């Protein structure tokens, strides 16, 4: 099914994690929110920070920095939640991703995008769709579905399983 090209083509939302510049395909971005209170869900991995109320829906929020091993996202005036819609196993899911700051909507032609380098990036290559450039700075274009698929519940269930028994035994004697 070939879709008519839209103006969204080649548009990316850029944001920062630590000092690195990242980008997401604008097609997967729904909106950008200011940081609100996140309700944590006990006994789940730390990088899944919890859920927020997005107009009556419970939307999980993921700390990308923590996921990538860059430390926890701190609350600043610039901290944002990028609401993305990703497809996990063909099922559309809405998720939030924490970002230190959101920069701009940036246009890049496909020709400008390089394949991900094998080494030298701060995060695992499999999460990277390609590398772009803005002036002197590199932009890491994330493959957001891959990022989330990787944290899908294999890992989450593992974490729960580990925490399970001893926590349980501690309280019912």
């Amino acid at each position: 099914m070939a879709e008519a090209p839209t103006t969204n083509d080649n548009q990316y939302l850029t944001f920062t994690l630590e000092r690195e510049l990242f980008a997401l395909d604008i097609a997967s971005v729904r909106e950008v929110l200011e940081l609100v209170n996140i309700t944590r869900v006990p006994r789940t991995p730390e990088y899944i920070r919890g859920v927020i109320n997005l107009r009556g829906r419970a939307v999980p929020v993921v700390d990308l920095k923590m996921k990538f091993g860059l430390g926890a996202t701190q609350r600043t005036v610039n901290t944002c939640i990028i609401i993305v819609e990703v497809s996990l196993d063909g099922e559309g899911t809405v998720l939030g991703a924490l970002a230190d700051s959101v920069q701009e909507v940036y246009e890049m032609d496909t020709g400008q995008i390089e394949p991900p380098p094998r080494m030298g990036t701060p995060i695992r290559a499999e999460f990277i769709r390609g590398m772009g450039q803005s002036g002197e700075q590199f932009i890491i274009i994330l493959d957001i579905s891959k990022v989330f698929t990787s944290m899908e519940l294999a890992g989450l269930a593992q974490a729960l399983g580990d925490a399970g028994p001893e926590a349980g035994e501690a309280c019912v004697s």
Partner: protein
Amino acid sequence: MMSQDDPHRRAYLEEARELLSDLEASLLELEKIPDDTDLLHKIFRAMHTIKGSGAMFGFDDIAAFTHDVETIFDRVRNGQLGVNRQLLDLSFHACDHIRALLEPGLDQDAALAAQGRTLLDGFHQFAGEDAAEPVVAAAQTPPSAEELSGCRPLIYRLRLKPHSDMLTTGNNPLHLIEDVSALGDCRLFLHAEALPSLDVLEPEVCVVWWDCVLRTTAGRQEIADIFVFAEDECDLTIDVLDNGCAEDGEQAHKLLGQILVERGDITPEDLKAALSVQKRLGDILTDKGLVRSTQVASALAEQSAVRDLQQKPQSERQEKTSSIRVAADKLDFLVDLVGELVIVQAQIRQAVDERGDLYLRSLAEHLERLSDSLRDSTLSIRMVPIGATFAKFRRLVRDLSAELGKDIELVTSGEETELDKNVIERLGDPLVHLLRNSIDHGIEQPADRRAAGKALAGRIHLTAAHAGGEVVITVADDGGGLDAVRIRAKAEQRGLIAPGADLSPKELYHLIFQPGFSTASAVTSISGRGVGMDVVKRAIDSLRGSVEIDSEPGQGTSIIVRLPLTLAIIDGLQVQVAGEYYVVPLALVEECVEIARQDNGTERHIVNMRGEVVPVMRLRDLFNFDGDAPAIEPIVVAKVDGERIGIAVDRVVGEHQTVIKSLGRLYRDVKEFSGATIRGDGSMALIVDVPSLVRRAAGTDLRGIR
């Protein structure tokens, strides 16, 4: 040719499926009461509709097949053929066949057609055997117009004028009129103008006569038959006023003049002349001496009677249209919206409480009333009686018990119990599992039953009832019961329990819900109940329900399923732990108590409540929160699987109407929470799944499962 996606065809498919389940239900009933003519009529009507609309929407194969079956049933309802097992078996297969014809199958046409022919042969054979007695059906007079209209009621006008000497022949017009009334809805108008004064009245002389308007499904002949012995003693006319084709009052009741003319009371000329004078027609006519006032009154009575009787079928029709088919997703969307509204309403209430503006408060209360009733009525839209589901099981029990050579009766009650449609849909499979188990493993073979001194026929009770905020569904059989010894052996062998572990019978029975018991080998070697019982348990858990098991060796087994009424909105108790808010479903909560920490500062793990030992779990510990619990800890006492458990929290906030929001895919393996809800200030609170929390807390130690 219309496409498969044609909405009318789709509607027909759905209607036909529904009619088929009705049909099956009626057939099952008929099996019990073979001579119930109402049922036969109902069956006939269902077939007739399937046939008629089938032909209309291009399902010619269905129309052709059903036509032949319908013909047989027409003869059955006319008493020409009797109901027997053969007919019922054939009819059930016919239902299956029609159902198969409804499904758009590829390359099955030839096979289906052959199957249809075999079935029809069976029907004809059935008809042939019993048709030894002269069947007049074929030789019947061609159906008159009114008979062609099917079983649709017609409105007749009868004018019965007994001859004055009728009473002396032993005929009593009152008896005749009674018989006429028995045919249907009857309005009578008595003409007693000729009644003399009492002193000259001769009791044997009949001086009165009747006009009668009758709405009935009976044919003209049937009415005439009543008068067969009185034909020579009276003048009788029978006219059809409404041939039943008038729908929705399109052929309205007749005008007074028309009626009088039709009855021959006046001539059309008289009517014309009278109509030229602008006065009430009845008055004009009586003034002119053309009719007596009683005649007018009678005609007026007829007019209103016909109007009444015509309206009746209309109201029946209205009943039909008063239920409407709505796409389920529209309803789900509505429920979602109402959920939003309830949340906003709670937010407003909270805000008003903080501000204390009296006017706002009264507005908020008004809004609360409105949103409460909106919520209730919206949720009630999705509530449907469970009866239809039960009816489907009859067929299952009938087929399965026949297959296993057992005689099993399914007794149901509480069909009217209403449940959320989504719950009913997801409840079907677990209930089928439970019934299969009862049929397959619960109820013994007839020989074993005889040996045990029981009735040969087994019995399964399937009941539904409301109990508080829950629905309780019970599947109880009078079979052999569970074999505790073998369950224990199996559990020990599988390492589920320590050898010789001290378990109550109930705890032992509960082991059959363990996944380890669900493998095929376990099924055959144990007294059986292992088949997918863990699947049942999981399905019920996912509906936030619970399963209990009760068994008496040799006497039978009961499985008790408890379910919440709805999945969308629950009443919850909001609690606070380490600054976070959680909701405990109120239906589980028995009471809240406060317990001071022990003198030495340690926390209690068990509290003594009025002599009962209740284990306590601390959310703070379970969730690995830092910080200290308050010196006086509130404890929410909940009942899980029949046992009480305390949940220690920091603070009990209060009751809270909770709209359940799914936590989404990322959290789907999180068992401690069944969802989230939105608090008055817009933040989220997690809904604690108490039963699975208890299970979690109990760890793998099965003795902890209570």
